[in-house]
């Protein structure tokens, strides 16, 4: 149901009239649904453009900064130059990660499965890398990893999993605009590896939790100025399910959210 068409008449409306009106209602409904899709697509494109522009801005800015520093008489502290170059590499990595994610999503649209490249992967190490990388992007948040495991190895697609965990952590940061703790935990639960990401941000209204992993669905309490594509969590679910795992959301509005992904420790071999 996309809407209700109302008709008012002084006399009783005959069944014939109602039957005749049905195609009209259907046409209107299709129109509304199409308009809604178009709006979602527009919002998605503008958010994706926004997300790509950030690393692009920093790459351009850093290259120009280095050009200025390389001018005759320019200031060139060697360790700063090394830091600038490192950041350029990180920003290009961020951009290509985002592009890969978009390609995976579009592959999913044409009903092609994501082709995983599983290899022995340490979840603790992935989580630690993501935590360090995300911590670099904020100083109002404290991103920390809590785990009793020194390593937790499964047969997983490392780069996709890293992006999925990255999406959870960047969401935790993004949706706690007042700052605060972002905690990642990793633990073994029998034959499963469980990773959680918790924040004390704006949370998700109860009615929206169930559909939060759907494409283009964003929680109703997100302020307009927090830009998002609405594909991040959808990508997390795709990647985790493709690995034979599950992802769940647990949230309380204004208190924060906890996302949990469970990955089979040995299933990849069993699947073969």
């Amino acid at each position: 149901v996309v809407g209700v068409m109302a008709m008012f008449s002084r006399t009783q409306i005959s069944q014939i009239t109602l039957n005749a009106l049905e195609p009209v209602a259907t046409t209107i409904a299709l129109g509304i649904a199409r308009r809604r899709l178009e709006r979602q697509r527009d919002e998605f494109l503008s958010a994706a453009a926004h997300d790509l522009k950030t690393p692009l801005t920093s790459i351009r800015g850093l290259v120009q900064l280095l050009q200025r520093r390389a001018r005759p008489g320019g200031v060139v502290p060697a360790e700063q130059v090394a830091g600038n170059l490192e950041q350029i590499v990180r920003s290009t990595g961020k951009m290509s990660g985002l592009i890969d994610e978009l390609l995976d999503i579009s592959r999913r649209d044409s009903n092609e499965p994501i082709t995983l490249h599983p290899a022995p992967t340490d979840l603790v190490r992935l989580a630690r890398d993501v935590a360090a990388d995300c911590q670099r992007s904020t100083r109002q948040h404290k991103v920390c990893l809590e785990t009793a495991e020194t390593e937790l190895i499964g047969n997983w697609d490392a780069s996709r999993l890293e992006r999925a965990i990255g999406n959870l952590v960047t969401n935790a940061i993004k949706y706690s605009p007042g700052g605060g703790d972002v905690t990642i935990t990793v633990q073994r639960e029998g034959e499963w590896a469980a990773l959680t990401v918790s924040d004390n941000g704006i949370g998700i209204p109860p009615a929206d939790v169930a559909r939060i992993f759907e494409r283009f669905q964003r929680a109703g309490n997100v302020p307009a100025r927090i830009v998002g594509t609405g594909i991040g969590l959808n990508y997390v679910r795709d990647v985790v399910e493709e690995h034979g795992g599950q992802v769940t959301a647990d949230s309380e509005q204004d208190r924060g959210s906890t996302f949990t992904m469970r990955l089979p420790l040995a299933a990849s071999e069993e699947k073969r």
Partner: protein
Amino acid sequence: MTGIMVLESEEAGFAFQPPSLESSHGLEFEDIADGPAATLRERDASRLPTTARVLVVDDEEEIRSFLEQALQDEGFVVDTAANGQEALALAGENRPGLVVLDIMLPDLSGGEVADHLRAQYNADLPILVITADTGAEGKAQRAGAFAYLHKPFDLDKLIKLVHQGLYS
């Protein structure tokens, strides 16, 4: 109309020239904008305070970081803020000579930050807006910016505009 558009180029971005600026200083905005940054620096060096303070407000660390370095290379004292609240707190401690402001912040809108800053100090605090939003001209004008640049912007141009905003 709140200002006169005086700078337009192949880059996305414009400069507004508030009429008051034009009458009180009689500046040659276009000349400055088109001249090389080095000339501008030399020309202004003698009559300028050496430690002009620039406040950079952007929620992305990677952008704050290179802007901070580039502006420090120019000899400015640079404060950086990741959101509107932080910007207002920093501006409260030390009055900035100019603010480079991303108008899409996670807590306050750029317009709100600009209004607060002006209330705190006065109307002639120059604000240079940077934005990833291609339709942001109106927002930049409403924030009272003297110029705005679209991301990914030209760093040389940003630095020229900072000099203009501070010293013209």
